[in-house]
């Protein structure tokens, strides 16, 4: 008995790595398809976009993450855009940091291609239904400036076209003309959006964040400064599930597919913690 415990206590890290890798890869090859409950922060955001933004309304998505957290946040952006396309809501994307703008561009080309392939009767065009603002440095300064004058902040879209020449810009000048905004980020930049866009300009907003920061932002949901939140890959998966349930998209998407692997990964972690603690307590008892 003590031998096993000693062995486990000094086990090479790489065996632990291997166990985790197998636990996460396995469900991809043999999917289980766990059922999923939708949590209120996600359904609140879905319902708001679904019911409270009129047709032809305007939604702003700020892509403020970099590749390191893209696994969690990219699927959210795609789900949100698909939802807006189906409701004929105009979508603006932007990024407060250079990496975000690059990822937003990737997101646009992906969603446009997918949407136009599966909905040939409702073709979406860059510049008419979706657009990406040019990158402007300044972070909170940009957020504040948009409350005064969106055209003057960006001048052009990311592709170099004058904003005034784009059909999608019709009637869009300040936050007053934007029905809803969602910030996708894994950093405290969400706070800047809440403090400046919501606080100073009363912009109605939602949060899409990594699971790490999720617990922190419940305080803002409770105080009403944001009305919905997608937390981590699970949040994205729930949003995708809502889209499928309401026939907006047909097949399971990126985030939903990952949920089985997520489940088995979590289980592995819990087992590690429990076994680790058992070893710790047995050893401590022995020492006494």
């Amino acid at each position, binding site marked *: 008995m003590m031998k096993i415990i000693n062995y486990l*206590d000094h*086990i090479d*890290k790489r065996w*632990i*790595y291997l*166990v*985790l890798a197998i636990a*996460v890869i396995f469900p991809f090859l043999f999917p289980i398809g*766990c*059922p999923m*409950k939708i*949590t*209120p922060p996600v359904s609140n955001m879905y319902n708001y976009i679904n019911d409270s933004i009129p047709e032809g309304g305007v939604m702003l998505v700020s892509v403020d993450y*970099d*590749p*390191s*957290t*893209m*696994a969690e946040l990219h699927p959210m952006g795609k789900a949100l855009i698909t939802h807006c396309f189906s409701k004929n809501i105009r979508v603006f994307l932007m990024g407060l940091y250079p*990496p975000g703008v*690059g990822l937003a*561009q*990737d997101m646009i080309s992906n969603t446009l291609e997918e949407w136009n392939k599966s909905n040939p009767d409702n073709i979406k065009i860059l510049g008419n239904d979706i657009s*990406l603002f*040019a*990158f*402007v*440095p*300044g*972070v909170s*300064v*940009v957020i*504040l*400036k948009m409350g*005064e004058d969106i055209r*003057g902040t960006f001048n052009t879209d*990311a*592709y*170099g076209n004058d904003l005034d020449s784009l059909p999608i810009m019709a009637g869009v000048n300040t936050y007053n003309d934007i029905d809803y905004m969602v910030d996708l980020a894994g950093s405290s930049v969400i706070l800047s959006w809440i403090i400046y866009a919501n606080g100073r300009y009363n912009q109605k907003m939602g949060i899409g964040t990594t699971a790490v920061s*999720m*617990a*922190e932002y*419940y*305080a803002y949901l*409770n105080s009403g400064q944001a009305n919905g939140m997608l937390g*981590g890959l*699970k949040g994205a998966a729930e949003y995708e599930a809502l889209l499928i349930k309401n026939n907006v998209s047909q097949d399971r998407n990126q985030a939903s597919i990952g*949920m089985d692997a997520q*489940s088995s*990964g*979590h289980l*592995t*972690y*819990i087992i*590690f*913690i429990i*076994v*680790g*603690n058992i070893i*710790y307590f047995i050893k401590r008892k022995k020492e006494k």
Partner: protein
Amino acid sequence: MFLKKQLPLLVAMFMGTMMIIQFFIPHPFSKNVYSTILDWLMIVTAFTLLIAVQSTVQMHITKIRRKVTDWQSSVIVLTALGITVFVGILGGAYAPTNILMKIFPNVQPGSDTPLMYLYIYFQTPMQATIFSLLAFYMASAAFRAFRARSFDATMLLITASIVTIGRVPIGQFFYANMPEVVEWILNYPSMAAQRGILIGVNLGMIATSLKIILGIERGYLGGGK
């Protein structure tokens, strides 16, 4: 001496006070001032960021010059940097530049720039992978370091286990209402603690900002005290 010490402090004090006062004046005059300042800030910020790059480059050049251990890796950094900047400035950021379209006639105004290829196929996968290493590090820490060594740590680990299991679909196999339990924890006790911490952090942030405007806090100017 004035240029070195007083002037920067005066600039910070003047601008800071002005922006606070501006907040309370809704008049169009104050809005115009505000708008202009925001424009200026965007430009100055860009320069401050460029200078941050300069210090990194400087560091690598020094390393190569002094031939310190591992100086070869600095050569790799600078080469990669040089190629990216060359491609980026000539080829355009998000839309291809005219020069690029002249050299390669098949590049259309809407096509992706070479910089974007570097970004999507080099930087993105590597950065994403480096951070995914954390999944492994944390697994080994879970096995070897996260211990219920005190009452506090035990509370922490129990809550963590409930949230970990309850946030994924598998939690419902253990207990059907698991997602609701997790949602309750996040909405009430956890939220309360987060808010308490947040109020403290916010007070600290405001205090720091005020100290900078008052000229008491000078660390940001560099060079320590």
